């Protein structure tokens, strides 16, 4: 049933000039933790890990980055605005790869009623260096694993993460 629904959704999206909808991200259960604190699901895609209200570092970092660069269009907590879609819902019908592609390259959704344009963030280190963080946060929002509030308890930022972040942001 779920597959039929998403197939219909895909047809509608294509008809309205959007990008075809791929399969959703699948089972979010975290099975493996990497050195930088990132959790992976069984398919090796980034996912969240929330235990008794304590979120993993990527969910927390994603919350912060989202509410700087993304919420200006997509609304608080991934809820959408009057002119940009609710990303907490968008991530449910996108693969991890699709998500990276759209954030890096942008997308246009032009119909007779609206012209919606998302810019390409691939050259913007404030976004590009934090794509996994954003994905993990939004995935948690999409599954309602995390609500509409700021995470207060979080896993620590790892040394590996700091190193990678500094390298990506061009910090010496």
């Amino acid at each position, binding site marked *: 049933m779920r597959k039929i629904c998403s197939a219909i959704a895909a047809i509608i999206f294509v008809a309205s000039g959007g990008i075809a909808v791929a399969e959703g991200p699948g089972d979010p259960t975290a099975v493996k933790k990497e050195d930088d604190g990132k959790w992976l699901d069984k398919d090796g895609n980034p996912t969240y890990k929330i235990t008794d209200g304590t979120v993993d570092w990527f969910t927390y970092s994603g*919350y*912060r*980055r989202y*509410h*700087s*660069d993304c*919420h*200006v*269009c997509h*609304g*608080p*907590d991934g*809820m*959408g*605005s*009057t*002119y940009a879609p*609710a990303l907490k819902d968008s991530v449910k019908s996108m693969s991890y790869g699709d998500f990276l592609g759209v954030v890096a390259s*942008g997308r*246009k959704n*032009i119909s007779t*009623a*609206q*012209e*919606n*344009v*998302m*810019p390409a*963030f691939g*050259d*913007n*280190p*404030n*976004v590009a260096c934090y794509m996994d963080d954003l994905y993990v946060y939004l995935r948690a929002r999409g599954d309602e694993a995390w*609500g*509409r*509030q*700021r995470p207060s308890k979080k896993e620590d930022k790892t040394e590996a993460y700091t190193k990678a972040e500094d390298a990506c*942001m*061009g910090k010496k």
Partner: protein
Amino acid sequence: MRKVLLATYLGSAAALAVGSASANDELIKMSQNPKDWVMPAGDYANTRYSKLNQINAQNVGKLQVAWTFSTGVLRGHEGGPLIIGNMMYVHTPFPNKVYAIDLSNENKIVWKYEPKQDPNVIPVMCCDTVNRGLAYGDGKIILHQADTNLVALDAKTGQVAWSATNGNPAKGETGTSAALVVKDKVLVGISGGEFGVQCHVTAYDLKTGKQAWRAFSEGPDDQIKVDPAKTTSLGKPVGADSSLKTWQGDQWKIGGGCTWGWMSYDPALNLVYYGSGNPSTWNPKQRPGDNKWSMTIFARDADTGMAKWVYQMTPHDEWDYDGVNEMILSDQQINGQARKLLTHFDRNGLAYTMDRENGELLVAEKYDPKVNWTSGVDMDKNSPTYGRPKVLDAASTDKAGEDHNVKGICPAALGTKDEQPAAYSPDTQLFYVPTNHVCMDYEPFKVSYTAGQPYVGATLSMYPPQGESHMGNFIAWDGKTGKIVWSNKEQFSVWSGALATAGGVVFYGTLEGYLKAVDAKSGKELYKFKTPSGIIGNVTTYENGGKQYVAVLSGVGGWAGIGLAAGLTDPTAGLGAVGGYAALSNYTALGGTLTVFSLPAAN
């Protein structure tokens, strides 16, 4: 011949003015005719007051819809139409259509203009693709497009008379503000404070579109058009390098200070007034210094652009309290003395009353009692911190530093008021102010600058003040004493420009979509009607065929549409509390419509 035709076209009031008089004289005269609405705020003083009184406090309850007009655009509709004689000019958000409508001929569309713009400008507009309206002068309708092109259209035909490029969207420079025609020039600002733009006000020749002068908000003295010896701040010369000294290195080059608000003009003093916006980035740690002249009220010579006086309201901003809101000019008595005043309701929650001739600060008071980032402005002329707001440590995001979340700051970055302009009635000597009643958590962090990409540097969440569920107020304010006279609660921020009239009625719109009329003296609600969409436009009035009309654009969006569409973050969520944080989307949906009201024929 052209002039004769034009005069006939524009109606009798304009006919008197057109001829040898300059555009300035023509406009002053036209703005004094209450039947017309020839500039964004109705007059140069930005009062948004009309002498029309057919609709008054006694009969406004009988108001009904006379006609409506769909703009065909769904995004947020700010600003309002111009009315000149029998013609009405309606603008829209991106793609920035302009409709010329004949009010004497069944509201027929006489011409329509739709520019071709690269849609890539859409995502570099910070907060929806709004446009705040048109200007008129010398038989031309001036449109400031999203892509920063300033276009003069023949008011009669819609043909492009000239076009000037004011900025570069690839660098994050965009156009959202309305222009102001002053004498033989068109003055226009620029947007892009969240993209690290070095913002400016630029004057173009009304006849040709040729650039006459450009004054930046920050930079070397020649770029900011400041005379170190003659330009004053609080009565003292600003001195050399007044801006450069307050920035680290050449950060001023990406310093923001944008100029997307409303401008006003005093013909007797020949000064234009406007405010500059936030310094870029939102992370205060990254840009030490006062960051002059961001967050500043400017008084500039209309001919040369040279600054006569400046006043920085929020030195070294830590909260995104843009200073762009309108400057309302009034003549009132303070302590028995007749003063030429300028009143400004800032995003930072303080309302300033100044002497507009010399920039003396007379009153600076909170116009929402919840404002908590400052204990007030130092009014002691002998104090070394004279004119500066005292920042409270608990609200200082600079003191807390990067990666620290400062909670419960009031107002939120939206400000106690944003661009939605207030009105002033000389009858009551009161200002009528649409306000936001929203607080925030603010966490700055390090960002890197990439041209044309967002340069924000802070994480925000917004919510109503603790213990309250309403997110807006509509207030009456006494600018002489700095006191609230009355205050009406609104469920959502009031994001619509107010209108005051000689009928003793004040009008404003709400985000749910209501046009409301209240008694100017008491604030008592006299009338409301729910238009097709939430109102972020400004209320206008005009007379046609002996009848007074009230017009307003609805079409929810703008910054208000970002946070409020989903409902603001509920700080108590997860604790099981049921708050009053209802989403705006439960009340209204998108759609641009002009709704025009009048009294029933039998009245």
